[in-house]
């Protein structure tokens, strides 16, 4: 008999409420702050190649973030967001996936994109909105996207990617469903991972997206980056209850909480989550607990809402240093070589900035392309009108006037 209420009736006769914090969800931690594996902890199955690719990605993003933060202060780009403190959460989760799995990110996940192979020049072209930007210079800096690398273009409205990830994952599952039984007939090739912050988890789209995935059974990994703050709002003003993870349980989703500064814990959890998605076609929620070490964005000044002491406490907990210690202990990383590589990367970044800022802005036609698959007549007419106007006043529109054909 199916129960139409879809609840288990565990009858008892004493009036009692379940406390909102009754679920005290544990946090998986494998590496200590000193980079040692905890006794009893299991190191996930990670190859040296993957571990080094992971490490190099984190290190590269840390350097890119520092440099672009500075570039913004110099007025060379309009905006930037770093992922300081969350490098392990983002990179290790991406590393546990197949490169063909779809990533649907919030905006602080540049490390996942770089892990996939997004090049330095591609980052720069987007940030400088030049004509080589895959997004054709239409969005603010850090709104990356790449079809080739299965990284869905970032959208500014928070949380919108969450129900989209459910739908996308459902699509990935469709071809593995048996026509007759409607059941999963084989393992799913690819899954979708969806990143979002604990702030975004308050949006309606979060609830809609998790519920849809749970009920419709979509192989999506919801990756909540609980980094303590949504701009200036601390987590305790964002939600009551036991974090974001407790909500996963409420929606009937398999859930785990991990130390987001521990690359091995994140890797292990994501690897296991992917396995569940692939085999059962169902979603998983991972809540990563880390601390947003940097400002929210270049438009933010955290000194207005948190103390230097609080920040200093967390500064000690560097996810990259922690993982590096483990790599060195494995004899997988040569520190001298690592330092030399850093120097080269620093130079490459400086050079890439100079190159990207000299590339021309997107052509005027890109103003009207991609609104529809082909411009509608009104749009073409508006464009002709604009062109004529610019040609009549070339001095007022110096970047485009000379390029109009």
């Amino acid at each position, binding site marked *: 008999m199916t129960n139409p209420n879809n609840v288990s009736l565990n009858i008892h006769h004493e009036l009692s409420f379940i406390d909102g914090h009754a679920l005290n969800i544990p946090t998986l931690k494998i590496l200590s702050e000193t980079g040692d594996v905890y006794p009893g902890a299991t190191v996930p199955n990670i190859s040296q190649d993957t571990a080094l690719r992971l490490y190099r990605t984190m290190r590269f993003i840390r350097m890119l973030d520092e440099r672009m933060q500075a570039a913004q202060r110099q007025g060379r780009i309009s905006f930037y967001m770093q992922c300081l403190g969350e490098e392990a959460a983002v990179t290790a989760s991406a590393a546990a996936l197949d490169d063909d799995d779809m990533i649907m990110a919030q905006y602080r996940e540049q490390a996942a994109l770089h892990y996939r192979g997004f090049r330095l020049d591609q980052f720069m072209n987007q940030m400088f909105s030049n004509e080589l930007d895959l997004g054709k210079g239409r969005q603010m800096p850090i709104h990356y996207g790449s079809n080739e690398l299965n990284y869905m273009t970032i959208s500014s409205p928070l949380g919108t990617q969450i*129900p989209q990830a459910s739908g996308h994952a*459902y699509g990935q599952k*469709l071809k593995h469903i048996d026509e007759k039984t409607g059941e999963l007939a084989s393992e799913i090739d690819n899954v979708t991972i969806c990143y979002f912050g604990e702030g975004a988890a308050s949006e309606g789209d979060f609830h809609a997206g998790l519920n*849809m995935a749970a009920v419709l059974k979509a192989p999506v990994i919801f990756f909540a980056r609980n980094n303590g703050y949504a701009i200036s709002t601390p987590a305790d003003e964002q939600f009551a209850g036991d974090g974001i993870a407790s909500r996963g349980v409420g929606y009937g989703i398999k859930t785990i909480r991990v130390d987001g500064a521990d690359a091995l814990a994140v890797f292990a959890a994501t690897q296991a989550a992917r396995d569940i998605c692939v085999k059962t076609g169902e979603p998983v929620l991972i809540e990563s607990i880390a601390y947003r070490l940097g400002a929210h964005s270049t438009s933010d000044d955290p000194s207005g809402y948190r103390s230097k002491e609080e920040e200093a406490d967390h500064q000690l907990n560097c996810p990259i240093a922690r993982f590096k210690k483990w790599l060195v202990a494995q004899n997988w990383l040569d520190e001298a070589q690592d330092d030399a590589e850093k120097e080269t990367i620093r130079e490459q970044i400086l050079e890439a900035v100079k190159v990207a800022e000299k590339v021309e802005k997107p052509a005027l036609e890109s103003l009207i392309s991609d609104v529809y698959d082909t411009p509608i007549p009104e749009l073409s007419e508006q464009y002709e009108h604009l062109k004529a106007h610019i040609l009549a006043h070339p001095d007022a529109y110096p970047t485009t006037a000379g390029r109009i054909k």
Partner: protein
Amino acid sequence: MAQMNMLQAINSALDISMSEHPNACIFGEDVGHFGGVFRATSGLQERYGRHRVFNTPLTEQGILGFANGLAAFGAPTIAEIQFADYIFPAFDQIVNETAKFRYRSGNEFNVGKLTIRTPYGGGIAGGLYHSQSPEAYFAHTPGIKIVVPRNPHQAKGLLRACIEDDNPVLFFEPKRLYRASIGEVPEGDYRIEIGTAEIVKEGKDVTLLAWGAQMEIIEQAAGLAEKEGISCEIIDLRSILPWDRDTLVSSVNKTGRLVISHEAPITNGFGAEIAATIQQHCFLHLESPILRVCGMDTPYPLALEKEYVPDALKVFAAIKQSVTF
């Protein structure tokens, strides 16, 4: 050809689309086994399986968010919002996501395979929250197409075109006509081009323009006018975005007069856009001011619906005002 009502015509369009695309999906509230509250999806779950035709939880933003993701994956996606009045929880997913997916990504990704179906409009004693015509809100957003059929034949041909179109489309179905409108509909496949208006009847004194369920009203008004010797040209706009300016401009240049009628409130309704454009393009041909006969600027009422609606008599009065200006 078969006799079909509008629901059967829609069902037929969906059926053809589902059989043509093995990964096409239809979903929304109650659309599964039950076939939707209006039964537009009857029998489809039986034919195409629970994984392709399914109920969703009751969450419009979830339905549209999910639909965006599925369409971005590449599967033909047909999402139903049970009543157009309830499309607003999904507003953000439509105007910020659906409509901008292609543009913001530089065409790295798009949701061109998405069609959103939703019943709209009054005349069913539905009151405030089962009668709205929200097309104008969406018509302000570049990146989506908006289509409204007036009868079963149009509904099937236009819906097929929407599903096959490479852009996301909002398809507003006039629910008052779901069962009331019956006509000849080919059983096989055919499509009606999006973005084209149809001259339903030629005339020489005044152009009447409407879409969807309001077409019936302007046709009645034209009948009243003809009895007084006024010859009306009747045009069905069919597509709100993009809309067929050329057909309307040449009609108005010929008749010199235009009366627009829609169910939605008059202020900022889509009629306002049409009036502004036509006065720009037909200024020297206009014999009288462009008139609009629309819903009042109130929520859609219940008890006084008859008084509120832009009925044939009101349109007829406007026609007379226009020709005697």
